[in-house]
């Protein structure tokens, strides 16, 4: 064994020590340091992954394949042809029907932090040269919850699409109806549904894409009304949360309950599409009508 046998101190100025990984705080700019955001941690496998790898892999963990949640603008850049997106209905007036304490301030703060004006972006664009009307919900804006502005933006988008005979694609992502706006939020379920009905009666195509998570009032309204319902792998899709269900029915839930794959098996979802194949799948669907 050679442990601790070598004399080192007389050759270099460094002493011998075992080092724990943890990182020192660096003062000088000359020194080696890891800039913020270079690496991130995957919540599923707990591995440290290189952010650039995540981005170039469609925001999927290169280690375990978990789908990271993505912002609406990132999603639009993945789906639509370059520079084809035109946003609609930006900056609709804030709705606070219950004068909910702290709500307005929360919204103002979120607008700054997320650079979004609400939990959905709507507009028109092209997928492989076919014009579509599109809405993408934002999980980072109050968990994609649907209040009056979200409902209004989606409804206006669908109505415009009906008028201009465009297919509609909605990327659903939501924790459900927005509590702070009370019954007005619930009403959006009916509002969006009836707009989609008129769109449907005009013989137009509506594809909904369920992403992680799609729950509550959104799932119980427009999300499940697609002529074709697609889902991303591993997405949580359900109405009530699993704990509430378990407590209500007094039974343990089956393995994989409320995951996209479970819903596919039980006929609630038409197809699970990998993120890198979404554009070509949507392209095929909109071109076929």
């Amino acid at each position: 064994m050679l442990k601790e046998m070598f004399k080192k101190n007389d050759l270099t100025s460094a002493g011998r020590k075992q080092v724990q990984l943890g990182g020192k705080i660096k003062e000088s700019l000359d020194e080696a340091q890891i800039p913020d955001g270079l690496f991130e941690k995957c919540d599923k496998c707990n591995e440290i992954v290189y952010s650039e790898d995540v981005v170039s892999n469609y925001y999927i963990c290169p280690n375990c394949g978990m789908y990271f949640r993505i912002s609406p603008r990132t999603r639009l850049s993945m789906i639509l042809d370059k520079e084809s997106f035109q946003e609609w209905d930006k900056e609709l007036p804030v709705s606070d029907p219950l004068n909910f304490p702290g709500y307005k301030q929360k919204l103002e703060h979120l607008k700054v932090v997320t650079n979004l004006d609400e939990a959905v972006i709507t507009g028109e664009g092209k997928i492989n040269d076919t014009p579509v009307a599109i809405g993408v919900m934002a999980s980072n804006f109050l968990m994609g919850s649907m209040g009056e502005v979200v409902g209004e933006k989606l409804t206006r988008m669908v109505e415009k699409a009906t008028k201009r005979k465009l297919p509609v694609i909605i990327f659903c992502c939501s924790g459900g109806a927005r509590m702070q706006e009370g019954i007005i939020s619930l009403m959006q379920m009916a509002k969006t549904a009836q707009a989609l009905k008129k769109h449907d009666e005009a013989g137009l195509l509506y594809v909904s894409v369920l992403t992680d998570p799609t729950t509550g009032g959104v799932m119980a309204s427009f999300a499940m009304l697609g002529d074709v319902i697609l889902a991303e792998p591993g997405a949580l899709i359900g109405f009530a949360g699993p704990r509430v269900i378990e407590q209500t029915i007094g039974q343990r839930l089956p393995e994989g309950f409320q995951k996209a794959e479970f819903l596919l098996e039980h006929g609630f979802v038409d197809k699970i599409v990998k993120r890198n194949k979404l554009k070509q799948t949507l392209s095929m669907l909109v071109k076929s009508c």
Partner: protein
Amino acid sequence: MIENKYKIKKVLIANRGEIAVRIIRACREMGISTVAICSEADKDALHAQLADETVCIGPAPAKDSYLKMDRIISATCATGADAIHPGFGFLSENSKFADLCRKCNITFIGPSSEVIAKMGNKAEARKTMMDAGVPVVPGTKEPVYTAEDGKKLADNMGYPVMIKASAGGGGKGMRIVEREEAFNKHFETASQEAKNAFGDDTMYIEKYIPRARHIEFQILADNYGNVIHLGERDCSIQRRHQKMIEEAPSFAISEVLRKEMGEVAVRAAKAARYTNAGTIEFILDQDDNYYFIEMNTRIQVEHGVTELVTGIDLIKEQLKVASGEPLSISQEAVKIRGHAIECRINAENPLNNFLPSPGLITSLHFPGGNGVRIDSALYNGYKIPAAYDSLIVKLMVHDANRELAIQKMRGVLGELVIEGIDTNIDFQYQIINHDDYKKGDIDTGFIERLINKKEVPENIS
């Protein structure tokens, strides 16, 4: 205490085994502090014991330790190292890692990330060389994606051809196609192998040159555009595209050809905007035509034979270049003296299809003497872990000419004792004593023929 006058003060060696030991030794000679990284299986390894500091970065499998970029970078920052030497293999030709080092203000001892990426893409490298007027193996200029396209080009070129993976290395994704009928099948298997091994099934096709010699030129370039070559190495003794014996200079090359190929090698390196140490690989056919195959953007296993014939310490030169020093050696000052041979000693059993043979070393004796150099991380009582490649000793000799070098190598192979595991020492002995090897009549098919004919060493005298 040795005074360190270079910009780099502390190097983390992102490797293991004998190359890590080599780099640590060079650093100590320059007064540069060293940090070793080790997996849990390597805590008792020589490199981990020899360095000034050691950081354990994960469990035994390379993908969980020596390939874990974030942990290596973390260890570098935590220990205050300002540079990383990647050695060879592992992350040494990983352009993403080189880029990561740059982003974290760590000096990567090697060329830039862009150069690594460009030369690492074999099809791109060929194109760069063609544009620079460097002769390349006749073959496709653009990458090939389908068997159909490939076959058209191959039919045009004339058989036999070699199908190669653009992202390839170590013999994977490579198939020789002798006849037209076999092309499609070989293309499919080669591209599938490439996809599995490298995640990239872009292929290219080259004319296959039978009975060729593998000649590579050592390049050294600083960050200021100065590029020199340090002569060639003949690495024709290969088994399944893995080198077994290397020597410098090459028996097959005249002074005139050496000068010409050397100039072309420098031109190639300049075309690639190369910095630090690297190797330009050529293939030499029976008519003395030479063709560029690829560029290795790292220090190589066999760099020692070049050091022996030139007297230049390549690892130290790498550290100096990375420190921002201009080259202190001019091309004229590079002199090749005598002949050097390296035999790679692997922990494997040649009688059992070269199956790796890890385990405990029960008895170890290294030879020595004038012109004998041993690069190894072995020591008495060391347990060779199973998780890594099987190279355990680089046995090198240097003497006045090739004949004397071969004689010396015979003596050295005879004196080397490694007990407790299987090694290829006897196999190397057979090759060194083979008439064709002594005559210098060798090409890249030498070992396969030896194995196929089951040549018994009746000619050991």
